[in-house]
């Protein structure tokens, strides 16, 4: 319900969602502080990545974060503990877990969904689980009231968009660029066309990620999308200032503030 409420409130106040992505456990011991700071700096919801040894859809910035977190031994159980702790002081901000299938397979779908729901997770985005194969997990998530977030890309056919929309809830994640996370710059006109095209098939909010690195690009995307997702730019700040304690939390907060104010100033016009 947190996710649905969040989008309803945003819509009521004519604002767009700002959705940061960070990887749980990178840098070590800072994730919960970082999450609270992101919210304080204007994030509406958080995509929390869980580490995997072979993050094949990610570019070097996020892939290296996975590598660091895996080498620190950060497990799914640890990630659930982080969410639980975050929930002790924030019971409003939606959290979407994002990651790859193998850790979930090894844990077992049933236990994964159980622990996610108990910890206070609101949605799950499995990068390498196509809608054709998502049946069992999707059913279990629905039973516990969790949303299954799905990806749509520039090359997704209309036939597939329909298939994806039929299982998606929460929001749809439109990948604005061909390639891995952290790739090149984006064409905002083309993105706008695609987002409008996708809307024909669904009422689920469409959020856009990949290629958003500053206030300007966040604002440009927020003209058409229901939400803006920023990942690599934050993960890269976290890596750069990893050893500087509280400073790393502040840096990532500044990035968030920059995007929030650029988006809101556009909305106010």
């Amino acid at each position, binding site marked *: 319900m947190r996710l649905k409420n969040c989008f309803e409130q945003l819509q009521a106040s004519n604002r767009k969602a700002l959705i940061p992505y960070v990887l749980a456990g990178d840098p070590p011991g800072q994730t919960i502080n970082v999450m609270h700071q992101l919210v304080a700096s204007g994030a509406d919801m958080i995509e929390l990545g869980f580490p995997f040894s*072979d993050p*094949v859809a990610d570019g070097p910035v996020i892939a290296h974060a996975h590598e660091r977190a895996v080498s620190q031994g950060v497990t799914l159980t640890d990630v659930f503990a982080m969410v639980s702790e975050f929930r002790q002081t924030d019971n409003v901000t939606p959290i979407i877990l994002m990651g790859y299938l*193998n850790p979930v*397979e*090894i*844990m077992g779908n049933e236990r994964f969904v159980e622990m996610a729901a108990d910890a206070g997770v609101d949605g799950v985005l499995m*990068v*390498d689980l196509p809608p054709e194969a998502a049946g069992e997990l999707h059913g279990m998530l629905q039973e516990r009231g969790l949303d299954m977030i799905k990806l749509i890309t520039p090359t997704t056919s209309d036939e597939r968009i329909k298939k994806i929309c039929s299982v998606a809830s929460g929001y749809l994640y439109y990948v604005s660029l061909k390639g891995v996370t952290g790739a090149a710059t984006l064409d905002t006109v083309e993105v706008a066309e695609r987002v409008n095209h996708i809307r024909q098939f669904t009422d689920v909010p469409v959020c856009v990620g990949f290629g958003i690195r500053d206030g300007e690009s966040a604002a440009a995307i927020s003209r058409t999308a229901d939400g803006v997702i920023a990942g690599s730019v934050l993960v890269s700040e976290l890596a750069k200032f990893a050893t500087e304690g509280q400073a790393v939390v502040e840096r990532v907060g500044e990035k968030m503030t920059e995007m929030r104010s650029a988006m809101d100033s556009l909305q106010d016009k």
Partner: protein
Amino acid sequence: MVDQKKSDVLFTGHYDQPDLMGHFGRFGGRFVAETLMGALEDLDNTWRELWQDKAFQADFDRDLADFVGRPSPLYLAERWTNERGGAKIYLKREDLNHTGAHKINHAVGQALLAKHMGKTRIIAETGAGQHGVASATVAARLGLECVVYMGAKDVKRQALNVYRMKLLGATVIPVETGSQTLKDAINEALRDWVARPEDTFYLLGTVCGPSPYPEMVRNLQSIIGREARQQIMAKEGKLPDALVACVGGGSNAMGLFHEFIKDTSVKLYGVEAGGHGVHTDKHAARMSSGRPGVLQGARTYLMTDEHGQITESHSVSAGLDYPGVGPEHSYLKDIGRAEYPTATDDEALDAFRKLTRLEGIMPALETAHALAYVDKLAPTMDKDQIIICNLSGRGDKDIHTVAEIDGLDGFEG
């Protein structure tokens, strides 16, 4: 959810795997990000159309004959057979193919597909370098740009093949992430493909990865088994009793096995790398010590820890040093149709030396794992029984590694 239970159905002689979605029972499938789905669907459609197309088959057959040099001989290893005193040992000589291994079979086939699809750039991953060399070779022949991803650790231990690829005009990109071996090379190739699907063909080198690769590579390699069947019928007038092949991803093994799956009298043995021994943490025995999971697009047996992180494999041979395995092998194991024993680094090295001295054939270290198992298996069988072992590649590329193990530090390969 995958648990540890075996498939409900055991093998009864009927075989029509995979289904249209690329599932071999509970294994296989297409577990990739949506970003790759478009490219895989295009490939799947083209592949299915061409595999039924007579003109494509004729082109493929001609290339296998005139460019690869097929059929490859089926050779009776007489001195070795006599030394073991058991079953007759035949070697299917894929090492005599152009470029020195079975990899060229599927490379030629996939190159025809790439050309048909109008692609101008080929990418490939490689472990031992044999698939990289095969890809660079077909790319050179068609005048296509070729980029080969290779784990930095493998670049060092397969220096000869790296230089061969460069001479053929390919760009070899050392991959510094993860374990710096085959698995990481596949990750990088997939990342490359996602970014440039329009002009790039991913020439995957084994029966792993998302559908349709496991089925496509198997079918393109199945010429090995079809020839072996004809050859053994001509020489012996009966089917073999056992087939033996090494299994990294498992392409040479599937190529030999496929034609014989329905013949239940023919035992199938896929030999995995036992490294320092399966009781240690340095091996690549996915079948005997791994568990089902999802890696690089397919559900299959994997080396993974209890948290779902892929663990590092080890083998003296780069081509077997991979924590996953082709999903069809996982299926054949579960239905009890094939067995997957292991051979250690030391056993493989012994077999390498033995074949070189007894038969005058220097095998690849990957192949030597299969030979090591044949060495154990033959004496347990009768003299009128027959083993066919796939001699999947030649050993020139490994001379440096063997020389180093022999303590010849100054040897420059």
